[in-house]
């Protein structure tokens, strides 16, 4: 039986080594950022102290210095790092092979400390061709270590839970599903004065993300006489030299085809006001936050009809097959479909709140 909520503070450590060293907030880092921003004060009112903790195998890094100069983390990183031995529960929110998983296992056994690990997806095991050489092996090493140490797993789609269950491994941990959501506040869609189709896609540029399909759809729509513009927002990933060339050498690049390699949330909102359709033609995702974020920014969103997206069917979200022609036809059809009012997409606050309930039940031993 875990500690009672009426006792003095329960300390929950959030392992932040990888997060603290990150300069740019990509998907997982955005999730971690929302998590501690949403939960720190809320949990304090409930007798839970969420603290940064570090549990690395071998490190010459002074993480106190790292936190002091970190790009991410905000006020959360002004708190002192707490040793994992002084925590009543540990959360592993990220992929990090440097974590001392065996120490966590020993701690968990000795002090009955729950270790809750987030597994955002297992795509490197299922589609190694989408990742750098040996990404699959490295990821498997991380997942095996995580399964050694964790007492509970949290995934963000039913698809990922299904993928884990299909591995030919014995996974003894309970696997809970908590959907992510939009970090952005909902805004009213902009009314266009013209019939222009303005497409926005926010994503790192990687082979699996489907930028090639958007380019194909873009060229088809132009050939059919449509007034269409496309905006990509995202940093470059790996294995995409050919795709980058295709974008930069496109005859419309710089005019009807634009690419911004980064952008704050304010920039995103402004770009969304200039768009009317968001697209998410990814071949595989852990979650794909741009669906909820696009909807929040007032865009009708077209996503590929893959299981991890289909399980989040909702108003103003449409699905397309994974080819340029189908995407072009979907864009035409959705452009003529009116926006449905009265519905707001799921938010990261919803995710944080549900996660907090889950972790509280684990810490209190009610799970």
């Amino acid at each position: 039986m875990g500690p009672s909520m009426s006792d003095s503070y329960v300390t929950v450590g959030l392992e932040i080594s990888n997060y603290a060293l990150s300069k740019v907030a990509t998907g997982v880092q955005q999730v971690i950022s929302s998590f501690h921003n949403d939960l720190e004060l809320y949990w304090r009112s409930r007798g839970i102290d969420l603290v940064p903790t570090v549990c690395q195998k071998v490190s010459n890094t002074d993480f106190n210095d790292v936190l002091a100069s970190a790009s991410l983390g905000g006020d959360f990183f002004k708190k002192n790092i707490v040793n994992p031995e002084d925590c009543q529960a540990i959360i592993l929110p990220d992929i990090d092979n440097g974590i001392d998983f065996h120490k966590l296992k020993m701690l968990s056994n000795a002090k009955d400390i729950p270790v809750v690990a987030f597994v955002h997806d297992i795509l490197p095991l299922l589609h190694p061709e989408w990742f750098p050489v040996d990404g699959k092996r490295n990821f498997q090493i991380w997942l095996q270590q995580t399964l050694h140490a964790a007492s509970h797993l949290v995934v963000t789609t039913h698809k990922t839970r299904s993928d884990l269950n299909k591995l030919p491994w014995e996974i003894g941990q309970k696997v809970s599903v908590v959907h992510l959501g939009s970090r952005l506040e909902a805004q009213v869609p902009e009314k266009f004065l013209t019939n222009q189709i303005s497409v926005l896609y926010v994503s790192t540029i990687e082979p699996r993300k489907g930028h090639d399909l958007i380019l194909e759809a873009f060229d088809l729509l132009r050939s059919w006489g449509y007034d269409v513009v496309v905006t990509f927002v995202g940093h470059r990933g790996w294995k995409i030299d050919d795709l980058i060339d295709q974008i930069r050498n496109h005859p419309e690049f710089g005019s009807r085809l634009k690419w911004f390699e980064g952008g704050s949330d304010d920039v995103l909102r402004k770009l969304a006001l200039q768009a009317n359709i968001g697209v998410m033609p990814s071949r595989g995702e852990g979650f794909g936050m741009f669906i909820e974020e696009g909807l929040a920014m007032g865009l009708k969103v077209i996503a590929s009809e893959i299981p991890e997206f289909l399980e989040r069917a909702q108003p103003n979200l449409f699905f397309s097959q994974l080819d340029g022609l189908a995407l072009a036809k979907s864009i035409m059809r959705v452009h003529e479909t009116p926006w449905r009012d009265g519905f707001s997409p799921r938010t990261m606050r919803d995710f944080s709140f549900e996660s907090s309930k889950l972790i509280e039940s684990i810490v209190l031993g009610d799970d």
Partner: protein
Amino acid sequence: MTVHYTVLPTVSMERLDGETIVIDFESGRFYSFRESAADLLWLISLGIAFELFESVIRKYFSVHESTDLSEDIGSFIETILSLNLIEMALLVDEIGSAPIANVELPEDYLRGDWVSPLLVSNDELADLLKIDPIHDVTESGWPESPRN
């Protein structure tokens, strides 16, 4: 009495697509075993009696007549024993000695001629396992890291 081998409790061993990754949490070392090596580990993980290993292997592989299969298997077992990944157990009864016909190797890669089992190990754990497996590998792949 039959000889069996068991995986030590401080060792993680998982197989995917013909490759078994073994992590020894005591020493901090990790290993990759592919194909024939992964198959021998599979037999160990099932608790199959050692005396049956050769028969099972012959069922799945073409073994050249010049190959000393018994020596290959024995040498491999000695190697992973010396690495403290497994330990030997002597069992009095037949528990774990399933009839050969019931022993199946995973159909996760294409088998053909028997190749002596190999393992790949990495001792530079501190550097290698600090690599973010997705974002930190260079184009030339693991175990190279931009931080190196």
